[in-house]
């Protein structure tokens, strides 16, 4: 992809993520998150990972954000403005975060990554399907099965946690 596309997308993502963490109205934060997810999806498309981008749209943007909006509506009054955060908290968090970011970015920029030009990325649906269910080297059938069990456990768990307590 060209640099332009990358910079537009990344700018989009960063702006909206900053807005997510600093907005004072709660529904707006959820919507800003949705835009961040759309930006990420764009990055995936630009890198030829089509299937992953589709999954991201469906599960993340379509499922998770919807759940979050439902729960926001269940638990808070949409017109309320959230309180401002204490200055002390902002200062220290900002300090920690900036130093951390500086350390990480310096390390990344100083490291020389190897250039690989001979192999080609193959991300067609056929390959993804074969790899997902293959039990040879490079296959991912075991995590696949485990994730399904995890999802089952999560469904049951959430139902039990969130149901109303029996009052008889």
């Amino acid at each position, binding site marked *: 992809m*060209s640099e332009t596309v990358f910079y537009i997308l990344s700018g989009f993502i*960063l702006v909206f993520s900053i807005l997510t*963490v600093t907005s004072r109205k709660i529904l707006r934060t959820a919507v800003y998150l949705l835009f961040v997810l759309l930006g990420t999806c764009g990055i995936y498309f630009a890198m030829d990972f089509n299937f*992953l981008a589709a999954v991201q749209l469906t599960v993340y943007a379509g499922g998770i954000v919807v759940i979050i909006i439902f729960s*926001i509506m269940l638990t808070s009054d949409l017109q309320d403005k959230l309180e401002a955060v204490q200055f002390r908290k902002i200062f220290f968090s900002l300090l920690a*975060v900036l130093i951390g970011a500086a350390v990480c970015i310096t390390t990344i920029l100083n490291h020389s990554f190897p250039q*690989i030009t001979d192999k080609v990325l193959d991300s067609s649906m056929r390959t993804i399907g074969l*790899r997902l269910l293959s039990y040879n080297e490079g296959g991912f059938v075991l995590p696949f099965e485990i994730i399904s069990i995890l999802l089952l456990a999560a469904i049951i768990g959430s139902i039990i946690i969130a149901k109303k307590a029996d009052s008889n």
Partner: protein
Amino acid sequence: METGVSIQHFMVLSTLMFFIGVYGFLTRKNLITILLSVELILNSVNINFVAFNKFLYPENLGGHFFAMFVIAVAATEVSVAIAIIISLYRKLKMIDVENVNEMKY
């Protein structure tokens, strides 16, 4: 693959997104906004995995699948977290993170 966008661009993007998410986690008061910050962190990690896959190990799809699994687990985690938040709301009638503090001295 055209020149210009190297792996380091993606990694810097992912780092910035990660630390923005951490800032949100440390600063926000409402439990749901904390959850949203956690989602930011998870997304940044996904971008990182995918970038590694494309630039360093193009022959297999490990990063791609891992990102998919992260998405699945994130969905799981959000559902459980929302269940907890709802039952907390029933008890305390508010969901500030400062009120969830009974495991203390």
